[in-house]
Structures are given as structure tokens and as C-alpha cells.
């Protein structure tokens, strides 16, 4: 059971108080009605599903009820940070990322700096 820091309550609380709400930073297009099928597919179905750092949404369902975002490593399941909804995707430092990496050998597919570089490529 994860331990999750609610940025609104400012407390670290057990996962059973929260509800996972999927990938974060997928903005609803303002021109929804005119969206192409391809763009709708990207918006609604396509997911990063990163093996590495994921940005995801949580809701403190059995608490303050607020939605917020988290940066977590999807192999070690460790959180780097959580932050309030609406805040931009945080720029993660190498140090922050290294702190949540799983031991290299148990996950040979994972390479430490990969996520940062990739982040730069995408945007």
C-alpha cells in the first residue's frame, strides 16, 4: 500500500484514502467538437505508459476530495513528488530521479538518465 502525500492536506496518507485517476497532463482540447479522429484517439486512448517516471493523477477521495498530480517511478513505485492540479509538469532534477530508481540489476531495462533525455525530446 503506497504512502501518498496530499499537497492540499499537506500530509502523507495511506493509499486507501486515494483514488488513482490515470495519466496526468492530458489537457482536454478546447476545440473538442472539431477534433480529428486521430487527435481524439491521442487524447482519449493513447497513453504514455512509461516504464520509468510517470506523471499521474490522484484524487484524495476519502479526504479533501481534491485532484492532484504526482511524479512516480513505475518500477520502484516511489514518488518523487506530488503537486497541485494546474501546476505545470515539474522539471525533475537528476538527483530527484536517482533517488527513486530501482536497483539497476533487478530492472535491466531501466537506464537512469533516460527519462530526463526523453523528456527533453518530447517538449
Amino acid at each position: 500500500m503506497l504512502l501518498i502525500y496530499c499537497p492540499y492536506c499537506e500530509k502523507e496518507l495511506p493509499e486507501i484514502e486515494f483514488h488513482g485517476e490515470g495519466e496526468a497532463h492530458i489537457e482536454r482540447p478546447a476545440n473538442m467538437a472539431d477534433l480529428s479522429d486521430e487527435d481524439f484517439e491521442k487524447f482519449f486512448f493513447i497513453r504514455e505508459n512509461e516504464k520509468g517516471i510517470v506523471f499521474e493523477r490522484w484524487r484524495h477521495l476519502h479526504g479533501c476530495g481534491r485532484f492532484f498530480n504526482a511524479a512516480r517511478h513505475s518500477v520502484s513505485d516511489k514518488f518523487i513528488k506530488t503537486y497541485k492540479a494546474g501546476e505545470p509538469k515539474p522539471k525533475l532534477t537528476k538527483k530527484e530521479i536517482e533517488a527513486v530508481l530501482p536497483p539497476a540489476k533487478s530492472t535491466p531495462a531501466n537506464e537512469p538518465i533516460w527519462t530526463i533525455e526523453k523528456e527533453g525530446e518530447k517538449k
Partner: protein
Amino acid sequence: MRKFSAFAVAREAMRSHKGWEKQWANPEPKSSYDVIIVGAGGHGLATAYYLASVHGITNVAVLEKGWLGGGNTGRNTTIIRSNYLYDESAGMYNHAVKLWEGLSQELNYNVMFSQRGVMMLTHNVHDVQVAQRHLHANRLNGVDNSWVTPEEAKEFCPPLNISKSVRYPVMGAALQRKGGVARHDAVAWGYARKAAAMGVHIIQQCEVKSVNRDESGAVTGVNTTRGTINSKKVGVVAAGHTSVLMDMAGVRMPLESYPLQALVSEPVKPIFPCVVMSNTVHAYISQSDKGELVIGAGTDQYTSYSQTGGLHIATHTLEAICEMFPIFARMKMLRSWGGIVDVTPDRSPILAKTPVKGLYVNCGWGTGGFKATPGSGHVFAHTIANDEPHKINAGFTLERFHNGRLIDEAAAAAVAH
């Protein structure tokens, strides 16, 4: 390949079993193959086997970053059934069941397919409506499935509690008598052995690091931890890691990977004769040949590649088990484990060509891929060999997320697999 039989075992017994050959070789990768399959789980190995046996394509490599059969194939609760609602699903899973029925003989490897019956419980009026819808559709699709009353359900599975005074009494069940279980490891090993005997290279501890494409965009091969391997056709069958691999080829997938847990009890003498599933209270249980109660739990609520999940997910399932089968409350959990399941938005798999020439994908089986193993491998081999889908997997496209033609078993029935 030397034939396995009781006679062979007896003969070997006289010479300390020194004459058995390797069940599969561990070859060095060649520089190129006609087809590369990425992922040596049940589906990948089956694909390779049918490429060789049905399509005569034996110059095939199956690349595996760990050990063959080490992923979800060896981590699931081995339930086999085909009583799905939609024509596409019924077609796929029924195709698989037919192949299951002769698989031990075909592979000369006892995969212990045991048609003990799969019973899906109903607990409320809505459940019954959903079950009836399945029963009628199954009958017209030629899929075996029948309604049983609570009393009949108890006769079929004596530990079942059909008391009216429990929180969610059993209102009846849909029973697929041809459903059952199989020995998961043996499925992977049996396919591996037979495929290897036909010339397929199974290359373990060989991780794909990138997918190569030419100027036209077509696939030319893969770079691996054991060097570059060329092929004009690459089939990705990597379950939870599909997103990662497809990303290497520039194809983004409608997939999310979740931890899925399962557990077994200590072994006891035969007490549980069939498979029982309840989607409403979340209980999935059977008893293995070793005597362990095999229990499937749910997925965690966050994506993860960790192969572990929270205890509360497993205990939630045990609550339902003890509610439905109160005699098991003093049984003990012996072992638990987790897999990584790749889930599509409509909970149906993708077995299809991709926008990249020469790249094929077989994924999205979610929590229910094991049962489809032979059928999936069979039609995926067809898809790769002919560069077009078999009619059975024609609907399981990537385009359906584009045009909206989903095969939404989950929405239609609130059915977990």
C-alpha cells in the same frame, strides 16, 4: 525431437534418465531471420510454433529479455474459458479452446488441460441479466455455457455457500463445462520444445533495445543486448512491456500496464473440483493438481512495472473467497506474486498489423490472456505470415480506437476476465 511417452520414461528410468535431450537449445542469435518475435511467453512461443508448423516459416527467432515463460505465462491463475459475449471474442476464445483440447498430443507435452468446468456466479438481478445475455449469445455462437441454479451450483462445487443469509447470496451461475485450467509452465515449455525442434531459435536473456527501420519506415530488425538482428518482420508479443517496445518503433499504444496479483494456499487434498469466478464480489478460485487453492486478485489502481502490489488488493479477494467458501477461512496463504498486465481501453486485445510496415503487435490481453494462448498464437502467426489478419482476429485492430468500433466486453458486462 525425441518422443515423450510413458514408454520413454520407463526406458530412461533404467539408465538414470541420462538419455533425455535438452528440451530446447540455447543458440547464439544469427544476423538475420525471416521473422523475429519479441517475447518468449506463451503467446510468443505459440506464434513461433504456428509460423513453423502451419506456415512453414522456421527461420524464426524468439527474443526474450529474461527466461522463456517467465512473465505472465508463469504468473496467472490458468483459467480457460470462452463464454464471451461479442462475436469477435467468442470466436477468438473458442478457437483457443478447440486448440487446447488437442494441445498435449500436438506438442507431445502434457499441458494438463483439464476441463473441470468454469462457473461464474451471479449475486443480483443485474448479474443475472448479464449472465442470461451471455448464455443466449454463447448458444447462438456455438459456445458451451449453461445456467445452473444455486442448488445445482453447490452440487457442482460443494464448498460453495448458497445460504440466503449472506451479504450477497448466490442467485445462480453460468457454467461452461468445457472451461477449465492448464499447467501454465508446461504450455510455454511445450511450445518452446516443439518450435525449437522445428528450427525456431529461442534466444533468452536477449533484450531488445531499439527497433530499426529503413528510409521508407519499414522495419529492418532490432538492436539487442546480444547485437543487431535483422528481419523484415517483427512481431511484438511483450504483454506489460508492449508500450515500451512499440515506442522504440515510434508507435504509441492505447495501453496501460497494471500490477495484477495472485496467490495460492497451502496444498490440501482434493476439495475444490472446478473453477469458480464471481465478478461481483471479486473471487476467482480453483485447485491445482498439487492441491493448492489458486486465487486471483485484482489489479492495483496505478500503473506499474514492479510485479508487486498492495496487500489490501489480495485481502479484498480473500474476503470474497471466505464469504463464498467459508470452510476456507482457516486455510493459509502460502505464496503470492504479481504480474504486469497490459490493459486496453475496451479490455479486448490488439492482434494486428501496425502503421509501421513489417511490425505486428499482439497485446492488451489484460487479466485474461492465458486462456487464449493457442488461439492467439495461431492467428497471430497467420497475420505475420500473410501480412493480413485471420478472420478470427480481424476485429482486434488498432484502428478501432480511431473509428470507435470497440469490442467492449467490460462495458457490456462489467466482466473481469
